[in-house]
């Protein structure tokens, strides 16, 4: 299993590094700046949906969806960050128990 561990790690690191080595003149372009501003939003919202509603290649609703709903309500109530995360964890745990 060592080849998979080392090759996978090397490729993942090189991808991280590639993002950090993009030349400044490329980053100065207005198009790239818009892309750079939208990319984290797109990636993180896609991740939220995937981590909440999927298990492998299956979609479904479970405690995680309840946790995310609780987080959304707490965010709307302007709760502090820690409370949002704790509320989501507690709600999800309770729903897993039920």
């Amino acid at each position, binding site marked *: *299993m060592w080849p998979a561990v080392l090759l996978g790690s090397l490729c993942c690191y090189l991808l991280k590094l590639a993002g*950090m080595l993009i030349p400044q003149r490329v980053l100065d372009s207005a198009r790239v700046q818009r892309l750079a501003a939208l990319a984290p939003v797109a990636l993180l919202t896609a991740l939220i949906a995937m981590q909440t509603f999927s298990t492998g290649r299956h979609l479904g609703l479970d405690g995680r969806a309840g946790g995310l709903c609780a987080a959304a309500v707490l965010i709307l109530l302007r709760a502090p960050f820690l409370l949002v995360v704790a509320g989501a964890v507690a709600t999800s745990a309770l729903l897993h128990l039920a």
Partner: protein
Amino acid sequence: METTCEIPPAAVRARLKLPAPLARDVLGIAVPAGAFALSFGALSTSTGFTVAQTCALSLLMFTGGSQFALVSAIASGSAALPATTVAVLLGSRNALYGLRLTGLLRLSPLRRVFAAQLVIDESAAMATSQEDPEHGRMAFWATGLAIFTLWNLGTLLGALGGRLLPDPSTLGLDAAAPAAFLALLAPRVKARETRVTALVAVVVVLILVPFTPIGVPVVVAALVAVATGMRMRAHVAGR
């Protein structure tokens, strides 16, 4: 003598000192991540990876989604090469974070070599959600280093004593990362193009999950969403 001992100078202390609210947020995102690493360590060793291989993954790959994807693929009978491909595909999103982080961090090439390893969802989310660039830089380093420490510690403990631990989903820990990302993103998703980008990302990822290999949906959804957001802006600007 006592005056000469007054180091570090105020400027250095100011650089190192995290504002208390930021430090709390960093802990709020890093502690659940560390707890989740316990389950990675346990899953990895129960799949047949050795403790050394499991710890090497957390130290060297250090991107949770890819690590779980690699180990889960092997656990479900995949060969090593396709499993590695899925992990790398999922890791490709970290290159996109670099687009935003490079301009924010403004590092020398040598420091980028170190900083790159800390580019993960959590450090990118924390860094890009700060209003003030200086706070953004502090958030990147603090989040990256805190998670690197706790993630590797959690992995080691999980790998050594994994079977003694409860499943993280019964503790609700699997809801922590999505909730944290939502809390960090929500204040930033105001402009119409940002809202459309977020919505398209969610819709596309959910459509793709059942029909494409693990790793594909997030990357494709993000690219489609960014392209849509950018077209909208171009359209508005063109009018």
